[in-house]
């Protein structure tokens, strides 16, 4: 029964000192929420190289010792059937993140018509929670490309040797690549793996490169493997001519088989 003579006391504590009340905790970040050691508020999901931007803060609650020594981690907002398991808060949060990462990446790898009903429901909830468009926009694409060092910028160092007099030492810095597609790109050596710096002009290589998904700009070269050079025109012609053809075979008398 609601006592209508004391309306202010029923709705919220009248005393302003009670800032730690549940009324304050009802909003995320309230004082009682701060003092709860089994609660955390997350503003961005980071797992390995992936950063998922949350549309609203994710509140985590860990409940220890629910399943034997293991506890369970729940989130608000919740993703259907996604619960973290672990003996400690950190272990359960790691488990939740791994499950989440696998689920979102599996769904992102699917085309819409490949999704079954539970997948579609799950995807809809993920899109409510995560800014998927931002993830696609901000996550670099990794592609394998084959190219040739097409230009090396020359850098000269001048000095003086007591024995030989003045000298000029030059060094070639690989700074341009021609990809198999015919596209030529300038390379910033600081964004490439160290092995790339050892390549010479004309060296053919296969690389794993990171590209901006919206502009296709080269962001970095994360791996490089040298490849043997392609044969020149004369060698290619000789090779082609060395391949046996049907001309070399003896004529067959088909009537023999009638």
């Amino acid at each position, binding site marked *: 029964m609601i006592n209508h003579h004391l309306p202010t006391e029923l709705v919220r504590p009248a005393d302003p*000192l009670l800032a730690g*009340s549940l009324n304050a905790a009802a909003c995320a970040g309230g004082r009682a929420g701060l003092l709860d*050691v089994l609660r955390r508020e997350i503003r961005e999901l980071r797992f390995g190289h992936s950063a998922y931007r949350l549309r609203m803060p994710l509140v985590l609650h860990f409940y220890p010792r629910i399943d034997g020594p293991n506890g369970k981690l729940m989130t608000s907002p919740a993703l259907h059937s996604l*619960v973290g398991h672990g003996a400690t808060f950190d272990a359960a949060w790691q488990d939740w993140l791994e499950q989440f990462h696998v689920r979102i990446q599996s769904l992102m790898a699917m085309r819409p018509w490949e999704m079954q009903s539970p997948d579609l429901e799950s995807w809809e909830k993920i899109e409510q929670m995560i800014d998927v468009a931002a993830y696609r926009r901000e996550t670099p694409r990794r592609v394998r490309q084959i190219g040739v060092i097409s230009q090396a910028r020359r850098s000269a160092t001048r000095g003086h040797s007591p024995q030989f007099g003045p000298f000029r030492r030059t060094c070639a810095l690989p700074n341009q690549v021609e990809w198999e597609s015919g596209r030529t790109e300038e390379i910033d050596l600081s964004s490439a793996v160290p092995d790339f710096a050892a390549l010479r002009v004309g060296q053919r290589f296969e690389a794993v490169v990171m590209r901006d998904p919206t502009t296709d700009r080269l962001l970095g070269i994360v791996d490089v493997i040298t490849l043997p050079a392609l044969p020149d025109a004369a060698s290619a012609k000789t090779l082609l001519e060395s391949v046996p053809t049907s001309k070399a075979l003896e004529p067959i008398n088909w009537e023999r088989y009638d």
Partner: protein
Amino acid sequence: MNLGKPPIVQAWIEFRFEHSAERSEWEASANKFFDMFQDAYQEREVLAQHQMQIEKVEKNQRPRVVDERVQLVGIRSFTPSKSRCLQLLRDTLTCNFTRSESTNYEGFDALKAEAMAKFRAYVEFFRPTRLLQAAIHYVDLVRIPFDKGNVELGDYFTFTQDLPQATFGTTMGFNVQYTARPPQSKDLLEVRLYNEQADPEGPTAQFRMDWRFIAYEGLSFADSEVGGRLSMGHDTLLSCFRNSFTEKGWALFEERS
């Protein structure tokens, strides 16, 4: 009250103080305070809050953050098993006990003894001028297996009822909260009940209850005064907790005689 499956997950006792002096060196003295308990509370963490100042902009201009500061809100320290935690905010001292991998909740007597010991140490160390508030906070998780995909709230809880389905349709979530003044008391009692994410294993519906008893009038630094108010608060919370469940609800906790 001896329960085979107690729903309690965490409990804490919280003291809020008033200080006369400007506390500009609070962080350094807070660290020294924690050093006194380093043997038991070994894993220290800081609670920080980002404060941003955003500049006014003219029409068609993008808002600009002109200053961002990280302010230390508090420090907390855990025992190695993480079952006990001591927290210090600028004006608040808190002792938290939780269930952990290796232990169940240790009980009110242990919590009160620990909280009162740290309360005395705080008063001695920081010399506050007044105790503004003493509070007990309980967090319970009530797990109820679904029956044909539903849980009838009225079957388990006495202070909340389901919405009429014919009018409202299916209840997907709820959050009820009351503030009450216990009989013959100047203190306040708050309770909040809401549905937590369902556990797919079972499957099981999960309800979180936050219970809070706040004493804020006529407090002194005397052990007998503060301890007595906390014990009274604990008794009040226990009685209210028992009466918030129906017999079917209470059976979930398997009371032992």
